[in-house]
């Protein structure tokens, strides 16, 4: 579905991505793990056009999308739940969710998805008229995920969705990821929590200072010694 070909990104003098290749097959969950500053967020941000790559291409169903405007890419169904939640703090919870569906014109479908999101996160329903900025961190993360779902993405990209969440809520987020994937949404997941990510993922990539150093089936990477040592915090 999505292909990244020798993608390079510079920030001024910093060579943040040094020619990475990555494929996300339709219907799968793919995860991208790596240390802080490895370039994970940069990868996702270049896919949605928030960062302009210096070279390389992003292809969606074999059509080049790099260089297009973000709103056009999002309209094609590539949706990013950004790092750090990025909730609209002065809008109500419900308005935040409706903004997720901004590009959609099927009113009925939007309302249906709204109640679906409220079923997933009853907490958000209780707080629907509250300003987004007044939510707790975890509630904001739920809102960010819910907002992403409201766009009915074809490919949902999530940048550290479990960050700062209580273990139980984090577990719930991962359950929701497998659930929406089972419902047909392709997922590209960036996570610090490498174990949880590799457990749900069909395929994983390891990113180290702008280069992909390892890749393989989620399960295989979980067993890989280098991964265990560097990202799962296990002694050899």
């Amino acid at each position, binding site marked *: 579905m999505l292909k990244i070909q020798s993608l390079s990104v510079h920030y001024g003098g910093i060579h943040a991505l040094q020619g990475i290749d990555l494929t996300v097959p339709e219907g799968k969950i793919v995860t991208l793990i790596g240390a802080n500053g490895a370039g994970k967020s940069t990868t996702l941000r270049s896919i949605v056009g928030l960062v302009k790559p210096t070279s390389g291409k992003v292809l969606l169903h074999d059509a080049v999308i790099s260089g297009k405007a973000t709103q056009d890419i999002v309209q094609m169904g590539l949706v990013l739940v950004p790092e750090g939640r990025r909730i*609209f703090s002065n809008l109500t919870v419900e308005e935040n969710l409706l903004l997720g569906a901004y590009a959609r014109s099927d009113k009925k479908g939007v309302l249906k998805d709204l109640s679906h999101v409220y079923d997933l996160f009853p907490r958000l329903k209780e707080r629907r008229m509250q300003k987004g900025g007044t939510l707790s961190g975890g509630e904001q993360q739920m809102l960010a995920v819910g907002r992403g779902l409201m766009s009915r993405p074809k490919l949902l990209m999530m940048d550290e969705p479990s960050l700062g969440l209580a273990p139980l809520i984090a577990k719930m987020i991962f359950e929701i990821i497998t659930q929406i994937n089972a419902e047909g949404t392709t997922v590209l997941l960036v996570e610090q929590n490498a174990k949880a990510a590799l457990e749900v993922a069909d395929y994983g990539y390891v990113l180290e200072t702008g280069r992909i150093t390892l890749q393989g089936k989620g399960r295989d990477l979980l067993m890989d010694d280098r991964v265990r040592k560097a990202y799962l915090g296990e002694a050899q």
Partner: protein
Amino acid sequence: MTLSLLFQHIVNALSLGSLYALIAIGYTMVYGILRLINFAHGDVFMLGAYVAFYMMTLLSLPWWVALLVAIVFTAFFGIGLERVAYRPLRDSPRISIMISAIAASFLLESLAVLIFGGRPKGVPVPDVLSRVIHFGSVSMIVISLIIPLFTFALLAVLLWIVNKTKTGMAMRAVSTDIEAARLMAVDVNKVVSFTFGIGSLLAAFGGIMWSFKYPQLNPLMGVMPGLKCFIAAVIGGIGSISGAVLGGFLLGIIEIMTVAFLPTLSGYRDAFAFILLIVVLLVKPTGLLGKRQAEKV
């Protein structure tokens, strides 16, 4: 002071406050969305008044047709101004876009001198608007009543757009976090154009009403009201629409009332805005209704 005189002062204060509020909204909306102080906004106000003037005199259109044409023209002019002077610099350092705004302001003033002429022009105020009406012992010019009425109607529509429509929701989203709004497939350029359009429309309406109330045009007529209304927006809390309205009315009321009750100070009437600004900022640096906002990066 008699009651009827007091009543007249109140109406005058409300009508000046309305005009200030209309202009202040343009500053605050643009700032809210782009963190840009549109220094040329006062000149857009001037342009609206001139366009209506020429529609009435050269084309002899009825005043209300001239008003509508001028408002629409000025709205599109504001949209064009953003395209030409601000959009190319949106990702540049903030200081570049500020300088561009100042340049745009000087350019418009100079062009106005060139095209419209530097000599003041007398505005043919329509008879319906300059009529004096009497309520018992109170007599008033129609225009002073019409201005607050129309302003309240426009404000109601504006608040409805901003708070209840999808476009308004997108505007509020863009003003909180441009990048996150992009991720929601919001076309930021469209939202910005829409904002400039609305701000310029309100300024044009204000400019035309101003020229009916104080019937004289000159190319620099937007400078002082522009400055005061920028101050009104800051006093109210820049970025907040209700703040701009509050600031505008406050300024108008204080200005008229001080002149009315302390006529010896009337020579300083233009200074009141600045004094109020300093006082408010000392007490509440974010403005009366402003919230503390993180600088956008």
